[in-house]
């Protein structure tokens, strides 16, 4: 059997503060962005995935970069790098946002949290080494930029997450989706948000590295909470229709093609009070006018064989009309699902699509995203 081994190339991987807990839990590790991360535990990806949808999964996402911006001009400065409204982001709220390039591409997809006295950005592990110099180079003179290196990051996701997290401190179960606050947990200053990347209700908790093990143990002691690895994190986010940087979006993807133009706040759009003023603003405005040539779509390959990333999508006449960027077997739907880019004129068309897999033509259906409905805790459903 020829396959990339789960343990391949992790000789110089960096460990998170929770490494020994993963080891004790029987994790199989994988190298990801220079980190040695738990790929799966003895339950396996399928069960971990289904457990998260039915109960709650605990994810170690300490590999993600966390960056604090301080100083009076921090929000104005950050607005120069993203189409998202940062100035009016209220204290106690966070937003999903994109850092854009001058070519109209995506440098990273991030979360911006307003903690009142500072903004905290959570950036992709694989992009931290690019984003940090970008921030320092572009806005390092306008605000103080500090990498929060000594923090672990835990995500608790699933319908049982709220009851589990509620045992940590009063009032946490009332937090609305995308709210964020600081909290003292047994003397450890933590940042907690009602958010995640699985489509489920849940929380993300940034905790000092020295206190991370105690917090993880407390959460694992709660009913329905189990470790879940990066394998299931990927299948959960794809079912939720969420992008993986490096697969579904990158520096060459336009914000519009990715369908992430909803992150372009009204106030920053043409005619808005603070229109433009971010890298690629004109390109994005032009694209919105003209429409994108390609569109990110959900795809349903027929049969049971998953279609993987970089598989070409073919039109009726056999010409290439798109490409799969993420594809795997959906544990919830018990069938292959995929996400990819399709020529805009083929998105709504009824003409059948297919892909070649090991010499066979596989019919590919179009699907609305997400594949599995989101279950975020939206109070009064305000965004």
């Amino acid at each position, binding site marked *: *059997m020829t396959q990339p081994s789960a343990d391949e190339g992790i000789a110089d991987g960096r460990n998170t503060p929770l490494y020994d807990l993963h080891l004790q839990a029987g994790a199989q590790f994988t190298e990801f962005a220079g980190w040695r991360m738990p790929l799966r535990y003895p339950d396996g990806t399928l069960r971990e995935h289904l457990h998260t949808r039915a109960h709650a999964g605990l994810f170690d996402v300490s590999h993600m970069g966390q960056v604090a911006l301080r100083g009076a001009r921090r929000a104005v400065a950050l607005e120069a790098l993203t189409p998202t409204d940062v100035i009016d982001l209220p204290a106690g709220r966070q937003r999903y946002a994109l850092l854009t390039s001058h070519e109209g591409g995506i440098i990273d997809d991030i979360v911006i949290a307003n903690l009142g006295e500072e903004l905290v950005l959570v950036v992709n592990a694989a992009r931290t080494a690019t984003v940090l110099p970008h921030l320092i180079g572009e806005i390092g003179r306008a605000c103080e930029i500090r990498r929060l290196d000594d923090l672990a990051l835990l995500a608790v996701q699933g319908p049982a997450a709220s009851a589990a997290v509620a045992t940590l401190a009063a009032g946490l179960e009332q937090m609305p989706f995308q709210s964020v606050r600081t909290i003292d947990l047994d003397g450890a200053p933590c940042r907690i948000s009602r958010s995640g990347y699985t489509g489920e209700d849940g929380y993300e908790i940034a905790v000092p590295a020295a206190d991370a093990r105690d917090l993880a143990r407390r959460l694992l002691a709660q009913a329905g909470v189990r470790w879940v690895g990066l394998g299931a994190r990927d299948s959960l986010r794809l079912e939720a229709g969420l992008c993986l940087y490096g697969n579904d979006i990158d520096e060459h993807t336009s914000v519009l093609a990715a369908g992430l133009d909803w992150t372009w706040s009204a106030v920053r759009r043409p005619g808005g009070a603070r229109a433009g003023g971010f890298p690629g603003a004109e390109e994005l405005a032009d694209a919105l006018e003209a429409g994108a040539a390609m569109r990110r779509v959900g795809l349903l390959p027929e049969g049971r064989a998953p279609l993987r990333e970089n598989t070409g999508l073919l039109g009726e006449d056999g010409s290439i009309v798109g490409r799969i960027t993420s594809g795997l077997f959906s544990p919830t739907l018990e069938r*292959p699902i995929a996400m990819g880019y399709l020529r805009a004129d083929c998105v709504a068309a009824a003409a059948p699509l297919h892909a070649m897999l*090991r010499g066979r033509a596989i019919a590919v259906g179009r699907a609305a995203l997400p594949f599995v409905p989101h279950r975020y805790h939206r109070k009064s459903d305000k965004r």
Partner: protein
Amino acid sequence: MSELKYSRDHEWLRVEADGTVTIGITDYAQKELGDVVYVELPEIGREVRQDEEAAVVESVKAASEVRMPVAGSVVAVNGTLADNPEQVNVDPAGDGWFLRLKPSSPDQIAGLMNEADYRAYVDSIRK
């Protein structure tokens, strides 16, 4: 029923009484792979070469090729894997078998590892 033989690519092979050989992937391989969600098997009658990637096993995240430890013609495939691919995880050396070949060069079997050698081989790559 003879002792199992093993390839360096983590396939097992068993010589049956009628001279055909049954092939599957090892317990080590299924553990490395994780949950098997799909298995693609060759057509009956197909001639395969030694080391040819004639079957595919897929987990949630990744596809892996299964190399034929010996050359031969495919005389049977495990059709139950189409609906129950998890058999590969549950019973890799039993109900999770992949296919049966009529070997064209039976001397290739002698070049495979016995169980003790395979165990030592797995220990060496586990480091």
